[in-house]
């Protein structure tokens, strides 16, 4: 096991987690007005109506797939009587479906972003960087799905090395040697995935934390009373302090 393996499979994961958590808190604290999807729906509606749901539903399914695949030990599913081959068949079927939806979605979104003038004009460098990282992670993820299923190459049961490594990180007992021996495509995807989380707090991706799920469970009229009210007593807010006091 080399130094590079230690850096990649021990240092990088913890650095990723730290950046993701601290970065998100920092962003929430100092850039609330920038905490937004920066929606471009105003500029173009036809393509986004197809591409955006395709991408978002796809990516949510991908998320579920990752949770199941990485967090749940193989022994647990076996205990439930799901055989290795059945599990993989299901994973590949659903994974390919979700991955394809995500990929088609993001390709459409990027195509739209580049070709529709007003949308392109509203695209920042930050956005472009984010698309590179996100797109790479998705494409590589789809590749690993195919590799893992044996569609490409020999097939590989990632639940015996990648998933175990993933949990070892969360349990603070890192086992980098597991990743060192995993197929190249898995290693590259894992790094790409971590990088997405590194840039996450600093991009539009933060809007994922503000998905308005509460709307589903809430009456549409919300009243808030003022609570105990003492005029003029409100504390100054950051950025709005009175001058000359």
């Amino acid at each position, binding site marked *: 096991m080399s130094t590079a393996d230690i850096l990649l499979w021990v240092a990088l994961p913890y650095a990723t987690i730290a950046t993701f958590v601290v970065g998100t808190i920092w962003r929430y604290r100092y850039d609330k007005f920038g905490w937004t999807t920066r929606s471009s729906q105003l500029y173009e509606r036809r393509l986004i109506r197809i591409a955006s749901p395709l991408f978002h539903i796809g990516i949510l399914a991908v998320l579920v797939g990752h949770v199941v695949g990485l967090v749940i030990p193989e022994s647990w599913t076996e205990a439930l009587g799901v055989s290795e081959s059945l599990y993989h068949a299901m994973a590949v079927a659903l994974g390919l479906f979700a991955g394809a939806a995500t990929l088609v979605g993001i390709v459409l979104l990027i195509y739209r972003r580049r070709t529709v003038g007003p949308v392109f004009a509203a695209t920042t460098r930050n956005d472009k960087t984010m698309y590179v990282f996100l797109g790479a992670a998705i494409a590589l993820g789809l590749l690993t799905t195919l590799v893992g299923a044996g569609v490409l190459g020999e097939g590989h049961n990632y639940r015996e090395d990648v998933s175990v490594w993933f949990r070892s990180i969360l349990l603070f007992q890192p086992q980098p040697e597991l990743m060192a021996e995993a197929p190249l495509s898995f290693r590259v995807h894992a790094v790409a995935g971590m990088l997405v989380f590194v840039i996450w707090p600093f991009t539009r991706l933060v809007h994922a934390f503000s998905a308005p799920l509460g709307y*589903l*469970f809430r*009456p549409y009229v919300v*009243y808030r*009373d*003022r609570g105990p009210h003492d005029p003029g007593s409100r504390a100054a807010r950051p950025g709005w302090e009175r001058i*000359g006091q």
Partner: protein
Amino acid sequence: MPSSATDEFLVRAGRFLARGEVSEDLRTVTKHGGRDADAFYRDRWSHDKVVRSTHGVNCTGSCSWKVYVKDGIITWETQQTDYPTVGPDSPEYEPRGCPRGAAFSWYTYSPTRVRYPYVRGVLLDAYRAAKAANGGDPVQAWRAVTGDPETRRRYHRARGKGGLVRASWAETIELISAAHVATIDTYGPDRVFGFSPIPAMSMASHASGARFISLLGGSMLSFYDWYCDLPVASPQVFGDQTDVPESADWWNASYLIMWGANVPQTRTPDAHFMAEARYRGQKVVTVSPDYADNTKFADEWLSPHPGTDGALAMAMGHVVLKEFFVERQVPRFVEYVKRYSDLPFLVTLREKDGAYVPDKFVTAADLGDVGEHAAFKTVLVDAATGRPHVPNGSMGFRYGAEGEGRWNLDLEGVDPALSLHGAVGVATAEVLLPRFDTGQESGEGGGVHRRGVPAAELATTAGPRLVTTVFDLMLAQYGVRREGLPGEWPTGYDDPTPYTPAWQEGITGVPAAMAERIGREFAQNAEDSGGRSMIILGAGTNHWFHSDIIYRTFLVLTTLCATQGVNGGGWAHYVGQEKCRPVTGWAQVAFGLDWSRPPRQMIGTAFWYVNTDQWRYDAMGADQLASPLGEGRFAGRAMMDTLAQSARSGWMPSFPSLNRNPLTIAEEARAAGMEPAAYVAEQLRSGALRFAVEDPDAPENWPRVLTLWRANLLGSSSKGNEYFLKHLLGTDHAVRAEETPPESRPQEVTWRDEAPAGKLDLLVSIDFRMTSSGLFGDVLLPAATWYEKHDLSSTDMHPYVHAFTPAIDPPWETRSDWDIFQALGRGVSELAKGVLDTRTDIVTVPLQHDTPDELAVPGGVVRDWMRGEVDLVPGVTAPKFVAVDRDYTAIGARMSALGPLVEQLGTLTKGVQMDPTPEVAVLARANGVIPDGPAAGRPALVTDVHACETILALSGTTNGRIAVDGFRDLERRTGRRLADLAEDEEGKRIRFVDTQARPVPVITSPEWSGSEHGGRRYTAFAINVERLKPWHTLTGRQHCFLDHDWMAEVGEQLPTFRPPLNMHRIFGDQSTGVGKEVTVRYLTPHSKWSIHSEYQDNLFMLSLSRGGPEIWMSREDAETIGVRDNEWIEAYNRNGVVVARAVVSHRMPEGTVYMYHAKDRVVDVPRTETSGLRGGIHNSLTRLMIKPTHVIGGYAQLSFAFNYLGPTGNQRDEVTVIRRRSQEVEY
């Protein structure tokens, strides 16, 4: 209820997930607290105070605004809505306020804000060094700096090239004061100048500096004529300068022509009156070469070629005269013109070339009357007796004891004969009339055609003379045929000879049938509605060289159709915000009339023409303008010669006036033991003393110190901008013109082979934002914005006054104009001790309008003392020379106190005398009195509030007692009842706090010709028409005929059509032969995104428009030079060069381009390929052309008054060459 079972399930489930009580119907949830989420929004839109202010640019909107302040910071502005009511059956003033005004608060904290005093570094170093070398004496230091040619040259060359460094207020005030003291001592007070336009837009701020300049003996430069916003036709026809209806009176019109005026774009807050009137059945016609914004409101759009509007109006006049005066006589029209116009008055005919030409008005003197001012009493024919009759109301009754009570339009039962046609014993005469639609190949002079008039023989003191009426001449001029008259006449509307509808079609491109129909409709509507036909005219028709004659053709229509003085009718000209309603009080404060009279006031255009040496490049001799029927009065003479004659004849002011320091001349006169006037006259006769304008390039005749405030001369109004840079400032320029060849040079003006480069010793610019004037200035002082000072605003479009109020104190080191000039006054007083002390100044005063001076040139017969045609008599054939004592050590003290002449001499506005003695006592209590010093015991004028209070107290429009006092004076002269127009408001006094509370309606006053009495809408000349008060003209009526010698010389005795100047012929081909070029008419109209309530550099407005310099051009012209929309182009001619982006639009007619006005050098101005210099403002392509008839003076309504009459700074006749340039631009 929730719309489905799923929703219901989810919401019911949600009750367990979140706090708060969900209502039974599942529609609402009530939570406790959590309001902080919107605190940011509440903070953003909360404020600590709201202050009333407005925008002090040349905006006729006069919108009052709420300015919001939070934590001491101006945050935004919104529209006020508390205007006085317009009255029943009419829309109100609000909503009003445009996006430009709403964007103004950006300036307060913008990067363009000038925050500290700045001085050009080279100059400041030199000054400090010189001061140290001169024992700390600032005046000596200034003499040393400007006395060393090398130093002077060095800081001149640095102008416009950066290097401004911060300096303290104390040092800048000292430097400017020293410059003034040294200049006055060395060269004279008339070498000191101030320029600040349009007092109405912020009266106290204007008065602040004007008071300083005037008390020094310096000269204020006029702006209205200089901006070419002054319609010279207004003094010519009405003897009054731009008195027009308020915008709410548009509602009363039932036929509205917008002629070269783009109301929605440039009069945005008032355009609603026009839009609303359409719902009342008003017909709207626009006349504009391009598809202007207002055209979309119009029922009809007439699109004449640029500058040919006069031809269209002549054809309309032809239709009106033919159908409403000859074929059928409309009683209302005939009655009107008999009483209110010069049409029935008799004019002599003079033999020429076997026929006759119109000559002069017949006067009582011609009939043998040797009484008082008989040469100014014009004569008409009593229709009942057929005998000549001298009616009341002409200028001969205006001055002197005999005329008292008779200066009125009461015909006393006499029915004037409009025409001599068909009367017993009347013969006919063939008259020669000039025409300018042909014969333009070799000059502007045109040809001659023959028409006929009925003519009768009249026995005069000079023997029998043939006479006819102005009406008969008008029919001959317009080509309206009557039986039995000799000459060539059009056979019908379809005969393309002057001035039929078919004739105009060939010139304007407007279909003949359309011109005929619109002319007929205009008059028919006036007949049916009692005069409610209106023409709104604008800069599109007013900025031409020949705009005076263009306007006269329009005014013929409004006068013939009996619309002037009628609500809903008449002319409506709003170019430039000229109506300072409290004019009397403002004039007292601004010109320091309370301490010394007369002030020096200079005609702006002539000043710049002379002192930027544009005269050296003027290839158009005065004789080129002469009519083929002229007497050769301009033969071989340049425009400059006519200016010199005007100056020495006392017609127009001319400063610097003489070629020696007037302080020195006064000392010489004292030494010689002579009266100053007699001494100057003698010196002039002997040739020992000359007028400065006769040798303007001599160093002793240069203007030396110029202060600009509220003005952006070099980024906005400087027509011939590059000549300013070259000769006035002495820095880099892009002039490519050749100087006039020797044979075309002036005869009576000294030509120096070496033209001076850099005349001004000091250019001071006082502004709150960085402008081109600041970039070229030597000293830049930071001013307060309109949200940081007290002031007053009024306009011609609204009969109310309202206030500026500081929302915050001037931030950084900025100060209000008032405070800056008070400091300068103190600075000069300090430095004057031991240098100037008390001196006698000799002021060269021109013959003034609305004073007996206008009786100086009887019959308008020109006699020049310099040519020995007449003796030099100051005040008659030459200017007056008036000695004025000036205590220079008391300038500061006098500036900040109201002087004693106010009550000792009273106040005088347009010939109306008012006595404000009681007001002075009131002001002493309101403002307090000065405790000690040279002004001890006088009412204070220390602050801008004091100034506003004084302006309001001394003016009739804002003080009922003054209005009544003035009307009583006018009653004595006219013998007519007038004071009742203000008597019911005699006790009303508008105080400054009233104007801060809300806009306050003004009081009907003799200062103006209209009436607001009883809440009616203001329309000009209502008092003249309803109360029979004469116009301030020769006949006392509206003039169609002008009999001054020079008017005859240029063939403009009667309204006519003159095409735009042929610049190609005058100045030659401008193309360079490089690349594909197109030569086009170059127009500079007002922009949608800058004019009028703020400027082009405002970030919001730059975002709304394309931003930066741009030239609008047609698709055809763009195709010719292969340029596509938004590409960089270069426009150039002999005057300079401009780089801009092309806006290619189908809206533009082929052959014409627009570059919107006041494109300054501060936003996106790259280097040009043509000159290699940073390139050009809109006025880099223009230059000044003087029309000699604009400098006539001393004769009735053709006499000088400040911003009343003067040569216009016209620029519309210019052409430019355009080519596509490299798309790679460098900055």
